């Protein structure tokens, strides 16, 4: 005898991995169905965004002057950040947009935010290819060993994306404001991490302002900042040691462990709340 809707969740989700794959494909297929350019849109949006920041910030506002290979510097940051934002925003609405299924059929509900994360992962993968092509073209790649930074930073952003996504997905069922709050916070969070500007600019500014040393630590240890810095290390070869905080890997590992605890907690909350999903929609 088994309890539907409880216990052995990870296993249950794992058993339904075929479905997870199909749901990810459905999301992607349905997104560009009936459009002439189809999957090209996956590229067009980030490229336009990139050009906008590159021209306005880099050239007009002259941010590019202090930063060599500014194009790659910028695109690396944007790529990993948009992965995070898409994971969180997609997951937040995932339960509601699958209301038809949630109300009528028993499935481990974690599958819906996971499918959103999967779809975001696919977009991220495509963008990474573009980034790689660009980095090769501009000869901006670091030594191959440095490129291993890709893994810890992506893992870190994935842990936080999942933890936040699962939590917000459940909360959004009860309180629809969550999705709008999320949009606003995601917009803000982008400027809270060194994506379009350099980390050194922040530490310099903090020094000039005479803020205490812990202020820069707080800023740096924000997991998004850590992931952006690590990810940039993997693709942007022009960076010096001074461009990064000390012990970056250690910071990432610690943030990752904290993230796992948060992921566990947010899943507990999700499990508690999911019992009433069907009637709250």
């Amino acid at each position, binding site marked *: 005898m088994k309890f*539907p809707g409880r216990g052995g969740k990870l296993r249950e989700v794992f058993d339904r991995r075929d479905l997870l794959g199909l749901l990810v494909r459905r999301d992607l297929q349905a997104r560009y169905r009936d459009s002439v350019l189809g999957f090209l849109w996956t590229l067009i949006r980030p490229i336009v965004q990139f050009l906008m920041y590159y021209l306005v910030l880099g050239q007009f506002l002259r941010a590019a002057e202090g930063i060599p290979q500014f194009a790659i510097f910028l695109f690396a940051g944007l790529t990993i950040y948009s992965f995070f934002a898409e994971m969180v925003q997609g997951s937040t609405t995932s339960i509601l947009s699958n209301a*038809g299924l949630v*109300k*009528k*059929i028993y499935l481990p509900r974690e599958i819906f935010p996971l499918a959103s994360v999967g779809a975001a992962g696919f977009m991220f993968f495509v963008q990474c290819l573009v980034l790689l092509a660009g980095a090769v073209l501009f000869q901006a790649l670091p030594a191959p060993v440095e490129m291993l930074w890709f893994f810890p930073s992506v893992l870190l952003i994935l842990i936080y994306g999942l933890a936040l996504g699962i939590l917000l997905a459940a909360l959004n069922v009860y309180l629809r404001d969550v999705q709008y709050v999320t949009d606003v916070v995601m917009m803000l969070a982008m400027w809270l991490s060194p994506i379009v500007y350099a980390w050194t600019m922040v530490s310099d500014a903090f020094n000039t302002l005479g803020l205490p040393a812990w202020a820069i630590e707080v800023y740096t240890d924000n997991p998004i900042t850590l992931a952006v810095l690590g990810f940039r290390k993997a693709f942007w070869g022009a960076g010096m040691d001074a461009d990064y905080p000390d012990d970056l890997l250690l910071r990432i590992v610690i943030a990752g462990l904290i993230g796992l605890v948060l992921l566990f907690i947010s899943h507990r909350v999700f499990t508690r709340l999911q019992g009433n999903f069907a*009637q709250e929609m």
Partner: protein
Amino acid sequence: MVLSPTPGPVVVRVDDVTKQFTVRKDNSLKERIVHAGRRGRAHKQEYTAVDGVSLEILAGTTVGLLGPNGSGKSTLLKLIGGIVSPTTGRVLTRGRMAALLELGAGFHPDLSGRENVFLNASIMGMSPTETAARFDEILEFSGIGDFIDTQVKFYSSGMFVRLAFAVAVHTDPDVLLVDEVLAVGDEAFQRKCMERIMRFRSEGRTIVLVSHSAAQVQELCDRGIVLKEGQMVFDGDVNDAVSALRDVLEGRRVGEAHALDSGKPIEITRIDVLDTEGNTREVVPTGSKMRVRIHVHARRPIPDWDMGFSIDTPTGQMVLASNTERLEVDLPSLEAGDSSMEFTIESANFGPGQYFVNANVWPVEPEDTHVMWQGARFTMEHTDDSIGTVAAAISVG
């Protein structure tokens, strides 16, 4: 009625399950904050949909959940299916479960029929290889044909439902939960659905069915559970369940006697169904002689009077009716007080199932009819020879 194979182990156990809903009138952050604290309680309402229900369902049985609107039968089905979790108590299940709560719930309008078949089958727990193996069968059953590669948003609603049902019945569930879905599609398709569900039964699978149609439940199920305001008021043989449902619908306590004393000059006090020996029968053999005895009470002597009877199915379909006017019989004048009269049906050729007997009496002058609805109930004995609404002796030659 086809008898199920021998019931197996328990596949569903519901242990003292209660489900409460909190109905909130505020759903945005602003409203929540404004109404936080003590005033918030005015914007919340507790509603108990299922109240302390315990039951066990054995493998291979077909169970019908009956009850008026809002009695909690759909909620109970969702609890069994794990779609909502109980407030208190627990639900235990065994085996693969498919919930047919809404056909095509997982269909995505922008995907083609083929893609949706794979997606929906996967939602119901089939692997892509299993689906691929049964794909032709599914396509055949649905009768969609070449449209299978068209996006489902261009399907007619009938095609949509047919494809969804085809997927659902090909997923091989051990326990099938069905909620009113059989009320869709044209007649031919409905028949196909019924046949399929019959086949599920004969394969020894378990079916839990929610339906408003007592006739459908009677046809398909061997056990009936009646709910009223979230509580289980009856659990047992499906025919008895249908009459218990009647009692619930008419606001009576289950099994309670009919109220009398209408103030009419002649009243019916009781109706009996008897056999030729004069014994009361609950089960009537097909083709036997059957007597309907109507007990009346007259307030004063009535010289000229008439009486009649009718026999209905539980859905209210009249199968036989007559009265002394039609039969051109003059009844002997009625003394004041209690007496009784009988109609004799030479050969009861009703199809298997349950029937209700109604009767009416009236003095010729002035006419003032008293009717007793469902004064008696009987079940036509089941034979394997034939099915349908009438029974007849059939020979082959």
